């Protein structure tokens, strides 16, 4: 049984809606066949990760779609880019790289995508509802959409997202189906409930452990405290999607499709211990005791709630160290008190993120962060060492001018 296409799919493939749509359909069909899909399904929205510049090939592909007359046919948001269009002075890309990055962003806007420039599209007002079929790129957005919103997307790579947006179709496979969304592993955090309620930094560490033990499997986490909120689950999912290939998890008591404890009785189970979280902290940090040069928070992009929390933790105090916060222009707008943060010395970064483009001052060697994802990728991307800590400790460290770790 190969891939069955509808008449409309075949018409797109044959170029009846232009060469851009045909190119998108060829890529979609090749991917669907490789995934073993039986057919394609309609999607309601897309989130495109391909707008971050990695080299000429990304621009060549986007321009081939534009030149072929393609347009997105479902609402489509855009992920972070290499530039901060609101604070251009922050990014130290050379002129040529910046021009290419901007050309890539322009090409995606020309395809009809919304210039949202955020890795947290689930924080925008119009987000997918429970059960909707979508095609999202960006690993943290994928895991959040599946797990917390109950929308359905596979773990797609760059290019598939825009091809799905242009054709309105995606492979009917994996996490798009009921079967693909069932838990096959239990991760017990029951013994950590009090600790998680007391220290939010444990969510990204738990996510790191989840990524290591679950890898590609859908796990059901038990024992998260009732205080667990969306921002906690965001941090957990982003960490799991960096350390592993996690595209969905269930949190019993928190997420909409979580199974009952009875349904989990026969599954393989892993009990997370405090020692496992400490090991995760060592893997993600490793520069404890070193003198820190900067502090980075907001990976994935801070929500307006988290910006407000940052403001409240700073409480008007001035930072001795550069404190960068990554957020979306929408969350910043919603928060509305950016100037108060800036008055404390906070450097607000939008549209991009401090670990994917040169923003930190030359000579920055050690950075403190509250993000497991930032901690995971920054050493290779930026050549820095990392101290991992809670948001509160990150703020206290920026104010004190040295690392403050309270656990």
């Amino acid at each position, binding site marked *: 049984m190969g891939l069955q296409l509808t008449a409309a799919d075949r018409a797109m493939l044959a170029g009846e809606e232009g060469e851009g749509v045909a*190119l998108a359909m*060829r*890529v979609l069909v*090749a*991917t669907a*066949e*490789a*995934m*073993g899909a039986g057919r394609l399904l309609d999607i309601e929205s897309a989130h495109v*990760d*391909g707008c*971050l510049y*990695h*080299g*000429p*090939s*990304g621009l*060549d*592909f986007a321009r*081939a779609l534009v030149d072929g007359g393609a347009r997105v046919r479902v609402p489509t948001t855009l992920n972070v880019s290499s530039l901060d269009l609101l604070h251009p002075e922050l990014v130290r890309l050379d002129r040529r790289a910046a021009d290419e990055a901007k050309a890539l962003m322009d090409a995606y806007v020309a395809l009809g995508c919304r210039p949202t420039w955020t890795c947290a599209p689930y924080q925008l007002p119009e987000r997918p509802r429970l059960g909707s079929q979508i095609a999202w*790129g*960006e*690993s943290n957005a*994928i895991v959040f959409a599946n797990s917390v919103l109950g929308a359905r997307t*596979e*773990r*797609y*790579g*760059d*290019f*598939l*997202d825009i091809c799905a947006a242009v054709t309105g179709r995606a*492979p009917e496979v994996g996490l798009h189906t009921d079967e693909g969304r069932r838990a096959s592993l239990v991760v017990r955090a029951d013994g950590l409930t009090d600790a998680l309620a007391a220290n939010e930094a444990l969510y990204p560490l738990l996510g790191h452990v989840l990524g290591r033990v679950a*890898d*590609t499997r859908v796990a059901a986490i038990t024992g998260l405290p009732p205080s667990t909120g969306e921002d906690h689950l965001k941090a957990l999912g982003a960490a799991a*999607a*960096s*350390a*592993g*290939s996690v595209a969905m998890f269930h949190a019993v008591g928190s997420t909409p499709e979580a199974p009952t404890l009875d349904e989990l009785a026969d599954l393989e189970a892993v009990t997370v211990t405090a020692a496992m979280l400490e090991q995760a902290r060592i*893997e993600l940090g490793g520069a404890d005791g070193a003198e820190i040069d900067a502090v980075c928070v907001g990976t994935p992009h801070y929500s307006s709630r988290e910006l407000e929390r940052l403001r409240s933790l700073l409480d008007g105090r001035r930072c001795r160290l550069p404190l960068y916060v990554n957020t979306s222009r929408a969350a910043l707008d919603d928060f509305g008190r950016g100037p108060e943060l800036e008055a404390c010395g906070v450097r607000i970064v939008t549209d991009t993120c401090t670990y994917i483009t040169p923003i930190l001052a030359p000579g920055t060697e050690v950075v403190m962060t509250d993000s497991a994802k930032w901690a*995971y*990728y920054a*050493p*290779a*991307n930026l050549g820095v060492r990392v101290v991992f800590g809670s948001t509160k400790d990150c703020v206290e460290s920026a104010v004190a001018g040295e690392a403050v770790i309270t656990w």
Partner: protein
Amino acid sequence: MVTTLVAGYGRGPVLRLDEPLSFWGGVDTATGVIVDRHHPQAGETVTAKVLVMAHSRGSSSTSSVIAEMVRAETAPAAVVLLDRDPVIVLGAVVARELYGRAMPVVVVDADRYERVAAFRFAEVLPGAVREVGHTISSEMHG
């Protein structure tokens, strides 16, 4: 079973990855060197290798990095997977569309995976992965 996900021909020394890899943030596009310091094969080069890996990990930008490596001629000669990984396939498919160069991608069952991983030098072609460069060659067809 050897299932062809992206058809093409590639040959080279075998590099087995002991853990999944995110190409984005994990491989230097210009040199093909694995730079993910968490990865057991950090420091190895993927360029022109027959890369034997279960599946990719982490960032969805891995597809972009693979397409860019094919363009820059720093890509693996072929990829042999244990799982049908759309992220790897997408990079190869888009590079083939843009530049007409095919980096073959195949998926094999667990038993063959172990055997291929033990090859020193291999070639990948539609429906088959073969050990080459030795007097005694073993052959695997789909």
